[in-house]
């Protein structure tokens, strides 16, 4: 009696995505992440920049994310270290004050170095940071939604290096065992981890084959292609299996002098480097940068 009746999914998005708006949102997420990290000289810039389109697609279009809506979709940022991008997305869709972004990683801030549910209970579905943990929680959220007959889709973002954690594979089996079609796993696949290249440290390949062998509907896309992200993430709602989206990303995408370099996993740029990065990213059209004391950025 492990398999429960399936919940019919309501494919909620009818309107076509406004890709220009999403692109602009991704640009601002990048600007915010760089400025948050540089202003406080602390944070993980590479993964945050690399996840900008994924977060823009999810929160800018795909997800029903009103915290007051019990039918809302859930998002679990299992690779919690890229949370600068998450906080920026929250601010830019109006769930956080934009002015709060500057407090990232400071004492007494709600914007903890890794996402803390106790500080942001409406926005952070589960605290994350130590890798390999969030995905199991996402499955639990999906089971709870199914028990209650809610149509929520649970989107869980993991890093590719994170998939070296054994619990991720336990969770892959769980979602398959319970046929959790309401779970969408997104793998931010940038090929890098702190100590270097995933392929040389502990290879995940052939990742798509492995995921398929675990019973998952596997989609491989460019993780910076907003149209593809929207289409695949939206489509995952109606798959007859749990969906794994391998989103190929470039660490620190958008900032050429950082791109693809593992050293930018957890390093904060200097103010000069941040100014260069912001010049590379360029301005957004629809958003204003948050103020930083002294106007240093």
């Amino acid at each position, binding site marked *: *009696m*492990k398999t*429960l009746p399936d919940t019919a999914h309501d494919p909620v998005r009818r309107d076509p995505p406004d890709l220009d708006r999403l692109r602009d949102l991704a640009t601002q997420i990048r600007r915010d992440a760089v400025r948050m990290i540089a202003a406080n000289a602390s944070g993980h810039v590479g993964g945050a920049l690399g996840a900008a389109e994924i977060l823009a697609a999810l929160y800018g279009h795909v997800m029903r994310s009103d915290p007051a809506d019990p039918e809302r979709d859930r998002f679990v940022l299992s690779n919690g270290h890229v949370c600068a991008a998450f906080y920026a997305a929250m601010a830019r869709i109006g769930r956080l004050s934009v002015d709060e972004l500057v407090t990232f990683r400071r004492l007494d801030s709600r914007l903890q170095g890794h996402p*803390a*549910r*106790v500080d942001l209970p409406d926005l952070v*579905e*589960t*605290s*994350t*940071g*130590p890798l390999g*943990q*969030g*995905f*199991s*929680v*996402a*499955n*639990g*959220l*999906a*089971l*709870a*939604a199914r*028990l*209650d007959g809610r149509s929520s889709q649970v989107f869980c973002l993991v890093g590719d290096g994170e998939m070296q954690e*054994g*619990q991720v594979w*336990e*969770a892959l*089996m*769980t979602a398959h*065992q*319970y046929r959790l079609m309401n779970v969408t796993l997104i793998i931010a696949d940038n090929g890098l981890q702190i100590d270097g290249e995933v392929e040389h440290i502990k290879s995940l390949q052939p990742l798509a084959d492995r995921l398929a062998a675990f019973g998952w509907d596997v989609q491989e896309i460019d993780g910076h292609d907003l149209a593809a992200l929207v289409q695949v993430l939206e489509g995952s709602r109606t798959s007859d299996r749990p969906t794994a989206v391998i989103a190929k990303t470039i660490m620190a995408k958008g900032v050429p002098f950082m791109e693809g370099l593992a050293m930018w996993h957890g390093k904060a740029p200097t103010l000069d480097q941040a100014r260069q990065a912001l010049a590379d990213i360029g301005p957004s059209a629809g958003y204003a940068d948050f103020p930083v004391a002294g106007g240093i950025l």
Partner: protein
Amino acid sequence: MSPATLVPIRDAFGKALVDLGAENPDVVALTADLAEAVKVHWFAEAYPRRFFQMGIAEGDMIGTAAGLALGGKVPFATTFAVFATSLANQAVRLSVAYNRANVKIAVSHGGLTVGEDGATHQAIEDLALMRVLPGMTVVAPCDAVAARKAVFAAAAHQGPVYLRLGRVPTPILTDETTPFELGRANVMRPGDDVAIVSIGAMLELALRAAEELDRDGIEARVIDMHTLKPLDRAALDAAAAECGALVTVEEHTIVGGLGGAVAEYLAGTRPTRVEMVGIRDTFGESGTPDALLRKYGITVEAVVAAARRAIAGRDAATT
């Protein structure tokens, strides 16, 4: 105390969970391939939709339970004590405790009396591991009657609970009228000469030791500290003030468990002689439960001797 019938505390847990499930449709249960061992198979039969077999994957089970709790359910995640607290410790710390998720981690096989399976399966440090987590309530009921009450009390409490049960059948020491309130210890026997504070099934040893001491005219107060965290400070204040000498008894290492908790508290309030009966910073081994308890010094005689030392220490300090 007359010889009592031995009742498996795990059975009481399993039956209570079924009754709780009838009362509260949000209660769900999970296990990591130990449904029958932890007696959660009755819940599975009664409420198949609300039962989740997670396979041999304890960290994933705890994480999934956290997700169920954050999604509004009241999950009881069941396995053996050593697996929940060591194998799955990261998930317990992050996804349950730090989230303040309403997960009840209900385990059997706490302590040495796991027996023949040996040191690998004997959780002798689980109470310490759970006690140090902020916001975690830590409970070990003394018998099957209390275990049933503990299940309902854990469910009524909003927040994470670690509920530790032993493997072996134990005598019934309480009845329906005995109170069971989380964080409120029960004084099971009055006395002002020494206080014996026990946790879990060790209450039986404490009561038998008190009887023995009584033959020598020593009146021992026996306190069932079924909730290790939050500790009942008032009960300890009273014992320190009125007895001035304490003995702790636990089927657990004396490092960081009941003895540690009591000593930590009294050191800062009313420094009192505390003698600890428990495992002395060593792993266990294979053997019958009784043989193990004897070898590792968790016996009525050990409690009696500890009580005499505590009294002597108190008297030496005050003269």
